[in-house]
């Protein structure tokens, strides 16, 4: 994984193994299986570097995104899940939600 992580964000690489998940449903599942403390730790770490990350990733169009930046991109997509938990719901899962194991996911290629 380390070959594919930009140097200036090495401090975030410790989240790669847990949060850089390729599938959308996988990122959601990771959110709800984590504790709120784990979600918050990830959320806080990304939030403190948010502007720099966005500036860095936005330097090229999505289509030309280098393979070495993909892990960081997946972290950012997972950050969307984390932010729902921290900024909106105040919990890792909505209080009254339809059992997600009953959803049959038909997502295609994501990027």
């Amino acid at each position, binding site marked *: 994984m380390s070959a594919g992580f930009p140097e200036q964000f090495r401090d975030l690489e410790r989240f790669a193994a847990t949060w850089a998940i390729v599938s959308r449903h996988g990122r959601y599942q990771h959110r709800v299986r984590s504790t709120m403390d784990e979600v918050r730790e990830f959320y806080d770490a990304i939030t403190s570097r948010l502007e720099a990350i966005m500036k860095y990733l936005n330097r090229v169009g999505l289509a030309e995104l280098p393979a070495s930046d993909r892990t960081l991109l997946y972290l950012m997509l997972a950050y969307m899940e984390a932010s729902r938990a921290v*900024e909106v719901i105040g919990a890792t899962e909505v209080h009254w*939600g339809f059992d997600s194991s009953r959803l049959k996911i038909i997502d295609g290629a994501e990027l």
Partner: protein
Amino acid sequence: MAAATGVNYEWAARYPEVGTKPLPVTPYISPEYFEAERQRVFRRCWLIVGRVDEAEKPGDFFVRDMPPLDTSALVVRGDDGKLRAFHNMCKHRGNQVAATPRGNACEAGFPCLFHGWTYDTQGRLAYVPDEQFFVGLDRSRTGLMPMACEVWEGFVFVHSDPAPSQPLTDFIGEIRTTYDGYFSTMKRVSGYQFDMNINWKVFIDVSVEGCHAAYVHGNNIARQFTGTENPFLHLPSKRLYKLHRTVSIPADLSREPRPLEGLSHKYNAATSYTPTQAKNTAEGLPPGVNPDRVPSWAFDILSLFPNMVMLTAKGTYITMTFWPLSVNRTRVDVVFYMDPAKTLGERVGQEYTIAMMRDVIREDADTLEPVQRGLESGALTEIPFSDEEIACRHFYLTVDRMVKNGK
């Protein structure tokens, strides 16, 4: 509230034919009523089965189950470029002819895997093994069983009657020109399907009113829309057509944006679901989207009769198709469409909308199975829909009119 937005909330006065009376629970729980719906609603309406870009090139096909018609539609673009729909059923002994959900049939056609009858991309019977033993079979006059197939704004509609008396344009009616080009730039980005123990109309009802937001979505997104001025989320625009209906969901722009919303706006990543200033206008939208030009607008609900609900926003729309399996069993098909992201910022903002709406839809869904159980108890005989719930009432009465009068 009326003064704040200049909108009149006397909806029953505007639509007197919809009325104010409580309505019987029967249509949600009666097997006989459900059978009448199958015959008089689903067999007499144009039904959306997909998008044209799912069958773009000659030979491209896809298969969609249509449970209330007891059939599957095989939609195929012929080698002549024309889009057609057939029952996915072999004329020999009834096997399915397309065994995969999608593909291209230019090379192989549709070979039935039972005894090898093979159809071409226009549905004609091209090859029959041992043809000479089928007495009286005229291959040139035998083909797949057609259904009517037409396109509106890129949506593929199928009608169980191969020559329906009502043309699609007439079925779409008042809104046929008002979405001009809105859907065409957006592509499918996500989807899921789930089966629920509810009557199909229960989910459409919750989709066309705002009164539930403060309760069902109270710990989630309600505040993005309700705010202090409109705590019960009155919907400032409700348009009731002959068959279809739209309502508009207002945004609360007075609220301080959350950190991520602020960021996604900064990087032009927001959809109008996550309201802050500037994005929430009708600018650049065709007249059908935010039709009353509500000033702080988040998105619309279009209830396209009978079984489709679309959430139309800026930069994204979501389709929810409700396929009844029985009177109290429904298959829900959710698909997200978005303008292709050009930058990472846009991509990230899109992911936020997808994650948010998944949580929202799961909240709606979670409410509805207990609702169905309540309706089935028989203890409740009538539903007192409020004036704010007039679109539920209108949908109910539209189904009822077709069940009773056939149109």
